[in-house]
């Protein structure tokens, strides 16, 4: 029932103006003993088929919580979604029943986690864990599902897949484990893949392999990819557009080329300037002063104002809305014009 209502019938054809996935004014809060933590405060972003959206932010910025809300894997309580919509092909996932949600989760929206070793179950073989997708969601027999698992392991280029399908997660290297995670996530041909720091725990040469694999799988299946990361290098390599998060809000979003050419928010600008560059060797690095805010005790007005070199009096009192700059660009800074022009602080 709900499953069929979600499936796009051929007659529907294109998506019209509705993106594949749209997060609209999402709020997530956690009830803790110390008080209510507002982890996500009005986040909006959208994703089209075949597109890569990078969500950039530091720890505590709310980037992973947003992803967990999309997946529907937040523990509620303590988490609560007081406001917002997550529309997948026009249907608000937050209004669906648990049962209907299960039909979407893993099948149509899938996720890869940062730490593959703790995301995989240590007491089952990887083949069993991959084939579980087919047994549970597709009702396949054990034998058929296992054959599918071998096929998938081949697809994510695990050597000698036929032999290794009976190995346990600890018998694989970090890069291979991440490939197994990817195999599980793409098993049911999802339309949206969320990758939460997929390469952070990996070495650079392995990171390059994994990012290449993801790009290839995306090309083959035209899925939308949400890449959650804090690495400005990875973002520049693969993203089509970027949403920069700070203290639970999107402070800037833009197509990837625009943001690296001329950032329109002081936080983005600071991050880009603090990267060590060849031509600045021996000089002091630019450092954003101060610390990320405590989510229990958020600054008034703009959450970035205590660290911001562009701060004026109204930043302390008025939270800036997400100003439209041009086309697909937005910045949540009262003084985005000055930042964009690169005015000295």
């Amino acid at each position, binding site marked *: 029932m709900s499953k069929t209502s979600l499936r796009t019938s051929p007659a529907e054809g294109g998506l019209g103006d509705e993106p594949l996935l749209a997060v609209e004014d999402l709020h997530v809060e956690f009830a803790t003993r110390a008080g209510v933590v507002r982890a996500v405060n009005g986040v909006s972003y959208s994703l089209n088929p075949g597109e890569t959206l990078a969500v950039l932010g*530091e*720890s505590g910025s709310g980037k992973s919580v947003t992803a967990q809300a999309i997946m529907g894997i937040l523990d509620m309580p303590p988490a609560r979604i007081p406001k917002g919509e997550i529309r997948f092909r026009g249907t608000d996932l937050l209004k669906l029943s648990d049962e209907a949600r299960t039909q979407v989760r893993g099948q149509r929206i899938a996720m890869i986690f940062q730490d593959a070793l703790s995301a995989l179950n240590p007491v089952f073989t990887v083949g069993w864990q991959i084939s579980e997708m087919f047994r549970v969601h597709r009702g396949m027999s054990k034998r058929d599902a296992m054959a599918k698992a071998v096929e998938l392991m081949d697809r994510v280029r695990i*050597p000698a897949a036929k032999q290794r399908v009976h190995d346990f997660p600890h018998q694989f*290297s*970090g*890069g*291979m484990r991440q490939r197994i995670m990817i195999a599980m996530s793409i098993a049911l041909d999802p339309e949206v893949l969320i990758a939460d720091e997929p390469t952070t725990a990996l*070495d*650079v*040469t*392995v*990171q*390059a*392999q994994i*990012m*290449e694999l993801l790009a290839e799988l995306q090309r083959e299946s035209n899925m939308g990819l949400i890449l959650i990361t*804090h*690495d*400005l*290098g*990875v*973002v*520049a*390599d693969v*993203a089509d557009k970027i949403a920069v998060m700070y203290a639970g809000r999107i402070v800037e979003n833009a197509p*990837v*080329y625009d943001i*690296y*050419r001329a950032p329109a928010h002081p936080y983005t600008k*600071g*991050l*880009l300037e*603090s*990267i*060590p*560059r*060849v*031509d*600045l*060797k021996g000089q*002091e*690095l*630019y*450092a*954003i*002063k101060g*610390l*990320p805010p405590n989510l229990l005790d958020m600054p008034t007005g703009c959450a970035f104002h205590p660290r911001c070199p562009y701060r004026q009096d109204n930043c302390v009192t008025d939270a800036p809305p997400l100003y439209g700059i041009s086309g697909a660009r937005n910045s949540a800074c009262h003084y985005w014009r000055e930042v964009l022009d690169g005015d000295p602080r």
Partner: protein
Amino acid sequence: MATQGERILEVRDLVKHFPLTQGIMFKKQIGAIKAVDGVSFELNKGETLGIVGESGCGKSTLAKVLMALERPTSGSVVINGRDMAKAKGAELKRMRRNIQMVMQDPYTSLNPRMTVGDIVGEPFEIHTEAAPKGDRRRKVQELLEVVGLNPDHINRYPHQFSGGQRQRIGIARGLALQPEIIVCDEPVSALDVSIQAQVINLLERLQNEFGLAYIFIAHDLSVVRHISDRVAVMYLGKMVELGKDLEIYDRPAHPYTQALLSAVPVPDPEGREGRERIILQGDPPSPANPPSGCRFRTRCWKAQEICATEEPLLQIRPGTAHLSACHFAETHDVVHAG
């Protein structure tokens, strides 16, 4: 005291093997993890030597052997003319004053039940001659001030500080005994991007102020480039290339270094389609059973027969001005975006 440019550390043919045993009662050695397998380099006063390599290449074991936390299987670690690998008892304790460490994870390397004052002052408990008892509190406060923390916070506990501040506490502890050498093992990799630059700037300022020599171990190649005078690249327990930062980054001669550099994502989307990228196949082999000859040959696109039979030595190769360990070393111009 050594003057600028004087050699203070000389490492020769350093080897650290960890035995692999079988059986419970009668443990029989069946092999060894060759974590560090013949590493030589030197370090001058006030200099920074960056060490890069992937996990499992032996860079952290090297740090532990340099700190005398692990005893080497063979080889020597000569600090100011004396071999620390052979030193014992009081002499070893005295030598340890001169080489200190900053750990990777500021969340687990500080004892949560000790105050900041106790943590930073603990080196004085061990080396009582470094500061008379009545003077310690003042010394600790001075150290906190040097690393940019509020000296009044001496009685606080680690959990009351953020990650960047905790790493500053770790640095203050490393500075307490006024060492000449500090080994930094991934000092910024656990920190948020906006905090990393603050800690790197602090390390550079302290180096200028106190003439410290750093051994800077990291996997972030752009950070290593920024801070290092010379860079060593390690692969499976061996150094494969060693040279000035410019030589390594702009004219790498070893295929592994070339692949490593090309795999680093450049934080600039301009021209990303046309960027040359060498993607290595597979994973590094196990250090318990490394390949014969050149250890990189199993993943190398230049490998020939000679690579399997003859181990390439770390030496200056024709056409290059720095040390590299490849039979077919040739410089490779790297085009940077930045």
